[in-house]
């Protein structure tokens, strides 16, 4: 995936964001022994380097609520068009990254793409200057099939890729139980929000609170994300039943 040069004003915002959040980063990573690398010789307006945690090997779900405020886990996954995506590449380019757990057959996901346009609207709102939006399918059964997901992606006019995680390693590490489950990662690698897309699990609210939009807007404004976690709703992620 391409790395775009951040515009000067964005770099200033990102630099300010990093300066403010460095103490938090240090606390969050107390259990991860690491050193913040000095950025290698950089050209002006070039990217910075964010240190992420390694993806843990686990067969059980992490608790997403407890991951908020901690460092994101780096990963590389391939999407339904065969392109590889590495989380740290996007963060190093100064972007906020949104992870969206996805299942083309889940009624809740179907509703967000066909009855409303929840995800597509936000992807369009932010464009790719500041935000990278990645759908992830951690299903190990037919719902994780590449062709099915790519066909659905086109049918639903999704501008963002669907990354395939058939072993479930990324889903388990992030504690994703439902589709949709959302994770918003700030450009400094901190998990700023994890949980449901909104508070509308019963589809009865005319004006739902979209926690992801609120989190991204706060990050872009350099302000605090008030709601770090909200309980997700949706179908179970189809991890292997073994």
């Amino acid at each position, binding site marked *: 995936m391409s790395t775009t040069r951040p515009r000067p004003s964005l770099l200033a915002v990102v630099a300010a964001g990093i300066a403010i959040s460095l103490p938090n980063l240090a606390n969050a990573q107390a259990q991860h022994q690491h050193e913040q690398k000095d950025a290698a010789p950089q050209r002006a307006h070039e990217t910075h380097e964010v240190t992420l945690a390694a993806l843990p090997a686990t*067969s*059980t*779900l992490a*608790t997403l609520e407890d991951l908020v405020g901690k460092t994101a886990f780096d990963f590389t996954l391939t999407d339904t068009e065969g392109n590889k995506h590495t989380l740290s590449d996007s963060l190093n380019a100064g972007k906020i990254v949104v992870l969206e757990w996805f299942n083309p*057959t*889940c*009624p*809740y996901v*179907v*509703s967000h793409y*066909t*009855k*409303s346009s929840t995800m597509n609207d936000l992807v369009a709102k932010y464009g790719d200057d500041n935000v990278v939006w990645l759908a992830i399918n951690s299903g190990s*059964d037919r*719902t994780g099939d590449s062709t099915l997901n790519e066909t659905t992606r086109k049918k639903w006019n999704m501008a963002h890729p669907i990354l395939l995680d058939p072993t*479930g390693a990324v889903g*388990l590490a992030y504690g994703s*139980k*439902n589709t949709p489950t959302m994770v918003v990662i700030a450009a400094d690698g901190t998990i700023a929000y994890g949980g449901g897309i909104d508070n509308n*699990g*019963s*589809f*009865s609210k005319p004006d739902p609170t979209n926690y992801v939009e609120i989190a991204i807007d706060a990050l872009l404004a350099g302000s605090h994300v008030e709601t770090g976690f909200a309980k997700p*709703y*949706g*179908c*179970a*992620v*189809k*991890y*292997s*039943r*073994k």
Partner: protein
Amino acid sequence: MFKTLALAFATLLPLGIPGQVGAQAHSKSSDLHAQPRLVAEQMAAKPGQTLWIAIDFTIEDQWHTYWPGTNDTGFPLQTEIEVHPQIAAAGDLLWPAPHRISSPQGILDHVFEDHMTVLLPLTISNNARLGETVSLQVSMRWLVCKTACIMESAELSIQIPISDAIGRPSPQTAAIFERARSRLPQPITDSDPVTITQEGPSLTLTSTPAERLAFYPSENSRPPRNLLRDGQAEGQTLTIEFRESNDPILGVLEVWTSPTESLLYTIHWPPENNEPRAQARDQELSSFTGDR
């Protein structure tokens, strides 16, 4: 009726039999994986009486529906109830206790398999006149899952004549109600073999006749920190750590006294002021005097 549902895929609406005089009204469709019917405990009701109606689901093998509690996935039964004419009023639904299911990775839900029977009290006004008929209409939707999930719905109605001749329930009807009532949790009284203590963020529930214990938190309970780990235990003691919150701990405790028999209690902690319990009083006294 429900506002336009935001769920895109086909909602299976069965062809309902129009409400018939008598004890049952049920859908004809065999497409539903959870098949509901309305069953009145008696053929008719007297003025001033509370008549119980069972919303009785037969669930296809290997499928399950959800209890309205703390679940990772799932969507419990939603109902809209209408009563005509206004000579009766529907009360709050009574829910039987569920059981836990979890995936190898740790996704945890509270569900029903084979049957889900929810009890609805219909209280007839004292002013109802003999010969009148009450029509009860229930619109409902629910999520039923095997590995995939399907949102289903139904609209059922039942007619209840107001009469002195209320008859007795048939054995089949009586069995439905007995099975449902056997799974209703009861408040803990001083004569029940359950004690509850709190230490810091953790609640400990103890029952000496227990072989096994499980706690099913309600939707609006103070949330457990790790329900998968803490929500059930072998033996006589169950200790559950909760996250900090101002909400009380609410839910259902199941106490197995043998592999197949259990007692069911509603849990409300701390106890409300108008429900004094020996344990709560002892705790107050011991903290006042400094005894442990």
